[in-house]
């Protein structure tokens, strides 16, 4: 039997808005994936540790506080450090267009702005993980 995709949805920093994270987690779960949601107030260390322990294929971070340029490069660095670069990293939330390009160059696979249909995220995750 084919193994189910495993996804870690996380909130990093002090941002308390978690509607988006929960809705995306539910949509991925409904699409047949195993989804772990970290809850609020995680550090990059906690996110990467949880991702490795849970053996996930992909990390999805929701962030609305504007602190993405601090936390995202750290998550990428930590994944490198733990030789866990095979874990994909996507994100969503309020991230200005000028940062999206920079973050993608650093290795974030995709960034979903508000108003994205959840089906786009589900399709992207499936394709990304299958392709690799």
């Amino acid at each position, binding site marked *: 039997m084919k193994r189910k995709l495993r996804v870690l949805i996380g909130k990093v920093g002090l941002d308390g*808005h978690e*509607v988006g994270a*929960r809705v995306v987690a*539910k*949509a991925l779960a409904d699409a047949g994936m195993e989804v772990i949601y970290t809850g609020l107030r995680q550090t990059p260390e906690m996110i990467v540790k949880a991702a490795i322990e849970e053996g996930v294929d992909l990390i999805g971070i929701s962030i609305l506080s*504007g602190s993405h340029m*601090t936390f995202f490069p750290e998550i990428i660095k930590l994944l490198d450090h733990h030789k866990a670069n095979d874990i994909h990293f996507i994100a969503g939330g309020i991230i200005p267009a000028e940062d999206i390009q920079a973050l993608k160059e650093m290795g974030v696979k995709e960034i979903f*702005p508000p108003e994205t249909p959840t089906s786009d995220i589900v399709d992207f995750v499936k394709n990304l993980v299958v392709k690799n």
Partner: protein
Amino acid sequence: MGDEKKKVDLEDIRKDWEEKCLRPVLEAASERRGQFSTDIGVNIERIYTPLDLQALNFDYQEDLGFPGQYPFTRGITPTMYRGEPWLTRAYSGFGEPQACNERYKKLIEWGVDEIVMAVDLPTQVGYDSDHLMARGEVGKVGVAIDSLRDMEVLFDDIPLDKLKRVSILGNSFGPVALALFIALGEKQGLKPSDFVVDLQNDILKEYVARGTYIFPIRPSVRVTTDVIGYCAKHIPHWYPCTLCTNHINAAGAGSTKATAFAIANGVCYINHLLEKGYDIDEIAPLFTMFMDERSDFFVGICNLRATRRVWAKMMKDRLKARDPRSMALKLTAYSHGGETLLEPTNNIVRITLAALAYVLGGVQFLYNASYDEVLGTPTEEAAKIALRTQQILAHELGITSTIDPLGGSYYIESLTTHIEKQILDEFMKVEEIGGAIAAIEKGYYLSAITEGANRRQKEFDKGERVSIGVNKYRVESKIPFGAFRIDPALEQRQIERLNQVKKERDRKAVIETLEYVREVAKGDGNLVPAVLEAVRAYVTLGEICDVLRELFGEYQAREYFSSKGR
């Protein structure tokens, strides 16, 4: 008898209309939708007539009455906006106190009545700017406040009595929030009686929406209610608690459930204070409520009217209030909800219409979102448009010439009564579970929120929830750049300022006042006087919260998300 005859006549006329006028049209072409539904689950009829009001046993005096009188459906004062329009508020704050001070001065120049301080996330959860968890977050979603010194800079040249009200949310650290304003007033030579402060200070909703909690639920209720109790005894003209429906609805609950939960949260605070020996008429007038409806213009209007009626009846019948001020609920609202990232200038229209609904519903305190908030911190121009929109509504176009202009509309009164029933039913469900704290602990609030959030997303994905320029009439357009950037170097500068404050202050006073806070927190006395002493001595927010963390512990959210559940 005459009424009875008229009713029969109208029913006949209606049937005749349906048969002869409506039916042929429907047979030729069906309506756009099978049902015209709302986010709160009420289906909207094709037309409303006196028959609908009769079916609901509508009674003018009992259901509406006159403004300024029970049950306050039409408004809480006898003159409403003819006396004075609602207070215009601006929710504003970013970066460092100095830069933010300049924005505040501009807002005052443009005529704002109240400034609501937006503070950064470390401040909101009681961390100083040098805390490990504050890294990357200082000054981001609001201004950084570590101590009284930051308040002095933020309000430099802005006497607090120059504003009609001034506010900080202070949900998890109400006593510190209150003390910061009392102490700042002292520095400006003002007594609390000279100015007006309002706080959100509503911790219970933070556990299910918004997330800026610090302590576990029960000690948090004490922290919140100590502020209300202190104001009741010493500063009864301040507003120490705003019961929030806004975040609960935004998270997914729907506006009527959100109102019911907010009232249940309020009843929890009130019961706590009654147990401590306060009288209902001493505390009830101090509460305000933060209303919210983002999906339907008319539900927005009726929600305010229904909520005033529910509150009035609840205070009178259930909590045995005698003072009409306890029954007349003052309402706040924040005009926003449907804003989009694509074509963001369209948001000006959305925000204006949201504001109009709250005005037609009889709001007391109003703030408008800026059209560019979807991109980040508002630019100066966008903040100005947000305020100007309110001023236009207040002073042009005759919107404020008469009280409750839609009162008596068959539709408005039917919808108001339906909403009132929904709020009461949902409130009773929370009561059956055991009240607000039980509803949080047993996951009842969160399940209502999650269910609604998933439903809304599905409606959006299917195109049933229309967002113009996004899922209808979409054209190829790029996501615009955020225009406002927060300087990343400010974090270090804020930490240096914090260190400077720590170096300059009286160390003995710091130790003594913190010890006083600890002693009071251990017992069940009111925390405010002790916290005020500490704030005056430039003890930081983080230091005070650390003492309380040590005694009360920290809230750990239990996670029950699984691939099967929610």
